[in-house]
């Protein structure tokens, strides 16, 4: 199965990581590997969305953040202040209002069944939706203020971490289902715009909902599914964590390979290549697309949950479109969209380069500063270091455009046909 190209590419990757292990030490390198495997999960999610089905998702950051939020909410210890206060009662009253509003809106949307004329229907719908929105948001507002004043924030549920990862993946799946239901039937550009928007909104929400996430104050320390470094030391703990994420990546990979070579995988690719023909063959195009969008989102949520658990801190401002969306895109299109091994290789390789590019950029700019100073007497701006890191943004953009133009199939291209 594995071609010569795969062997060479992965051999070089192992060599590269060996060099990193040797020069930076085991603690640093295991950390990098854990994060790279988390990114590999996210990249596998994107490769099934974009590579298998051609779905254009630029809102990965939002799904990653939701995954992290899910694991934080489930695994963080409970907050006794919150449980003792009126908070839970207030929140359940908000939930009650939400349910009533949902029923009212569902009724208003289905008014046509009772023979109400269209003009009246529209007016009623707008008023019902606006009224319910104000009612619920007013209740939520006062509940949030009460919780922030009395308890700080709601705290977690104090449940095991693996359950948190599952809930994170579930949250991501729910969001993907809603977005997919609305946008998947339309042109792919619209999906791009919508996912970009929803990612920003999720981030804004997590950042500003102090009652739920403590916002910019961040939540830490989060628990690990394995013993934490304080108990057994950095290298051992990180290696244990690495074992968990590596097993997740391998299991996902095996399942995906199986699915891709099954009739289901061929059907997905047929839909991507020629939607009309696939529909004419009786395939449910929209249903399959929604399915794959949700599957991809589950992997993204899981990867995000693992990433946030590993960092041990939930910081909503730390989710950046650059790190959590476009970096993943580079991984997938450089590695080879539609090829699972390509996605894993891309994730491991690009993350290595990305991590090392930070000291490299600083070093380069230091060099430029010295050189400019001695040769031209150029006074470098004082914030040169923060500007130097912006160079990485430029390089990511350049990589995307160059790969699309000169190597659109990536390093390990998608293999078609039954070989």
């Amino acid at each position, binding site marked *: 199965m594995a071609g010569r190209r795969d062997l060479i590419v992965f051999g070089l990757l192992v060599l590269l990581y060996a060099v990193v292990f040797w020069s930076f030490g085991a603690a640093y390198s295991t950390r990098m590997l854990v994060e790279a495997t988390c990114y590999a999960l996210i990249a596998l999610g994107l490769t099934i969305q974009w590579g298998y089905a051609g779905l254009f998702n630029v809102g990965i950051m939002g799904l990653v953040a939701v995954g992290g939020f899910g694991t934080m909410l489930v695994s963080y210890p409970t907050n006794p202040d919150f449980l003792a206060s009126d908070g839970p009662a207030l929140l359940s009253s908000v939930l009650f209002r939400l349910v009533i509003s949902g029923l009212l809106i569902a009724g208003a949307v289905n008014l046509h069944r009772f023979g109400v004329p269209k003009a009246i229907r529209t007016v009623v719908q707008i008023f019902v939706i606006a009224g319910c929105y104000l009612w619920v948001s007013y209740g939520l507002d006062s509940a949030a203020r009460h919780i922030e004043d009395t308890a700080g924030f709601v705290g977690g549920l104090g449940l095991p971490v693996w359950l948190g990862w599952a809930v994170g993946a579930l949250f991501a799946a729910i969001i993907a289902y809603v977005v997919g239901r609305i946008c998947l039937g339309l042109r792919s550009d619209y999906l791009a*715009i919508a996912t970009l928007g929803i990612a920003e909104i999720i981030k*804004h929400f997590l950042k500003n909902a102090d009652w739920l996430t403590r916002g910019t104050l961040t939540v830490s320390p989060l628990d690990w599914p394995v013993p934490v470094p304080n108990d057994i030391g950095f290298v051992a703990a990180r290696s244990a964590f690495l074992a968990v994420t590596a097993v997740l990546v391998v299991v996902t990979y095996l399942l995906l390979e199986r699915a891709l070579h099954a009739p289901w995988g061929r059907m997905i690719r047929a839909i991507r290549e020629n939607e009309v023909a696939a529909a004419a063959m009786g395939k449910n195009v929209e249903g399959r697309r929604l399915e794959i969008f949700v599957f991809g989102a589950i992997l993204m949520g899981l990867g995000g949950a693992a990433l946030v658990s590993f960092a041990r801190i939930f910081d909503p401002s730390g989710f950046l479109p650059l790190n959590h969306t476009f970096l993943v895109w580079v991984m997938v*299109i450089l590695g080879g969209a539609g090829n699972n091994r390509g996605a894993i290789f891309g994730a491991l390789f690009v993350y290595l380069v990305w991590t090392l590019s930070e000291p490299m950029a600083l070093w380069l700019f230091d060099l430029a500063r010295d050189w400019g100073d001695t040769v031209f007497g150029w006074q470098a701006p004082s*914030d040169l270091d923060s500007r130097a890191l*912006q160079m990485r943004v430029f390089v990511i*953009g350049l990589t*995307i*455009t160059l790969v699309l133009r000169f190597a*659109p199939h990536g390093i390990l291209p998608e293999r078609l046909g039954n070989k």
Partner: protein
Amino acid sequence: MEEIVFFINKVLINGTVIGSVYALGAVGVTLIFGILRFAHFAHGDLMTVGAFFALVLTSLAVSAGITAPIPVGFVVMPVAMVLTAVLAIGLDWGFYKPLRDKGTRPVVLVMASIGVTLMLQGLVRLFAGPQARSFYFAENKDIFRIDIPFGDVRRQLTVTEPQVLLILFTALAVIALHWFLTRTRRGKAMRAVSDNPDLARVSGIDTAMVVRTTWIIGGGLAAAAGTLLSLDVVLKPDLSFNLLLPIFAAAIVGGIGQPYGAIAGGFIVGFAETLSIFNWAIFLRPFRDVWPQAIDMPRHLAFVPTEYKLSVPFFILIAVLIWRPTGIFRGRVF
């Protein structure tokens, strides 16, 4: 009366200002969408780069001792527009045209435009640094305060000079665009390509020229919008990311490929934003005396908290995609 003046200041003036910016951006997006058939994600960054060009030119002009009765940034703006138009053509030539010639799917072009976005962002921050910058080196921003001539009103209508310039410029640009698209050969050729590219090509229309013109209009208007917005507030390198979503929402609300729709969409999104973050509790204040004691009078009654402003264009977008995917002006759905 006080409340109505406050409403005009907060909603009408701000809505017109931000709506003008969105409209100028959305015209470019919708023209590019209509003619090149892809969503140009780098449009927000064309705005930032255009504003950055204007900033550099302004500092050069100020150090050369040039002063003007209007802000220097506005005087040098045409040059910045030309530079940005040239940059836009260069970007097309370097990054989009090769992909188009290879016949790749439009969605790959979208990805390429995201790559361009990141490159432009990186360059702007590399040269300008991440902090906010003001256009006013030597002069002050003029603020006009207009007294209400009737009634007993203490609050004044306030509007800044760049806001007036922005609104005037937008009005002029709309008229010029209308004249261009309906009265000139080139404008008619653009509409023809937008309607049916194959038919346009076989009728002998120079498609390359049409593409160039599209980038000139899009780039020029983007630079103007970015400059005028930064003149009114400050130039921030992350300006573009927050503008992208409203601009796309405006283009889709107006109907893809419909320049007039984009203008209308820009103002719809702009007013929707200011209306939804406006504190409606202001209008309850005159009834303070007759308000029943039993109920607390709400102090803050906005549809959306200010920090969630970005969700307004998003929900408009979703609503339009659900109920009328062609937009209000019956644009295309590809």
